[in-house]
């Protein structure tokens, strides 16, 4: 069971959240991209054996969207590479 840190409600049980999928790269400009890059954007999902950045929706709580880094092997919420400053 994960305790997902909501910026408004504090750490809450994952059962209160809906999964929003991994954070994807920015949507490319359809006019400035190749067909292959566009298909990649639509079909490729990060699937690491380890930390992944993803979106969660506090749907049974305050309703906010947030993103966390989660280790897919353990479901520990971990420090993301970009968050260390």
């Amino acid at each position, binding site marked *: *069971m994960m305790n997902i840190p909501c910026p408004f409600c504090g750490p809450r049980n994952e059962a209160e959240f809906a999964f929003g999928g991994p954070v994807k790269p920015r949507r490319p400009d359809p006019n400035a991209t190749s067909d292959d890059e566009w298909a990649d954007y639509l079909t490729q999902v990060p699937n690491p054996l380890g930390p992944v950045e993803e979106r969660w929706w506090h749907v049974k709580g305050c309703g906010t969207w947030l993103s966390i880094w989660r280790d897919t092997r353990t479901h520990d919420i971990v420090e993301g590479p970009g968050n260390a400053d």
Partner: protein
Amino acid sequence: MPLDECLPIVNYVLMMQKYSIASLLRHGINNHTSWPKAWRSPPLKESYDVVIIGAGGHGLATAYYLAKEHGVTNIAVVERGWLGGGNIARNTITIRSNYMRDQSIPFYVKSVALYEEMTKELNFNMMHSKRTMIDVIQNYPMMRDRRRRQHIMDIYGSTYKRISEAEVRKRIPALTGGGPGSRLPVIGGMVHTDAGVNRHDAVAWGYARAIDALGGEIHQQTAVESLVRGADGAIEGLQTNRGLIRAKKVAVAVSGHTTTLTETAGLKLPLRTMNLTAFVSEPVKPLVDVIVNCPDAGFYFSQSDKGEMVIGGAPDMGQSFRRDIKQHVFEDTVSAMLSLFPSFKKLKLMRQWGGHLDIAQDASPIMDETDVPGLFVTAGWWGGYKAIPAGGLTLAHLVATGRPHELMKDFTLKRFRHLDYVMETGTTTAR
């Protein structure tokens, strides 16, 4: 001929040993001490014509059909753990063909038919029990969806039929919940008479024994660390914990670990890995003789020959390489089950587990040669136990001839390039 060359042949002949009442009596006289090993553990060679990664159902079935249908016998199946210890050992063994798409239904109809013949085909008792699956429907949109499926299935000779609520309750007497006063009353059901269950260990062992008898090799405790490409970009072999193995053709059949492995060859595949879960109760007297599927409540179960209720749970949210069930997922599934089967409250639960499955976003499998020449994948098997014999038959055809088999020609990788998906809603039973 030197002795060490003779031995495998002697072994091979012994291997052809048929299991029968006569062999049972003969070995019984010797107190069952004289049975030959069901398959050999030969030394690992430096190269093979074809190497298959993963001794699960799909890898073993592919090796079997390569040897049997195409005469390709210089093959090895390499397995990180032990034979048949992956998802083939973790699944809830529901075999059915009630799918939705023109591309899928004939494939699963063939697979079910091959399963029904398997005991004879492999001379190994699969304990096949064609016991029917009944969907318990509690919602009109769900009923309309299932009826639509029925019409498509009718075209391809699969069986799906609507029955009344009274008939559902007659056939599943333990279904006492979901009455008129409940939040989601049972409104009827769908019967799929082709559905059945069998013994997953027998599938793995039966194929392994047959592959061995045909001259193929199975290497357990052999983990593939990376795929090796030659200067021309084509596959050249694989790096394992036991050294380099060369092969011009390699098939990846590793279930949830496909992307981890294909990334080592510089490939990106449109798959994500999920953890699907299950749990079983203590054994009780025979109570339910069909597979019960409750898509609106979100669970399914069947009673094993030992008497245990084998219950399918939900997957983890998000990609997952865990192999257990989370407490709240477990509680949700149990409470859904108790809403329809209140008497199950007295059952003690014995074990829970999960398994790594990968899935493409259209929920259909991928069976294709990749952009790396000579490298084949069979992946995206969310409910892929039922697909094992047809999956092996058709992948072996592709690997041996270079041309896709008619039954799987739409399960390509190209479809993601062209955004030409095979959206399949029949992949998951309960959701």
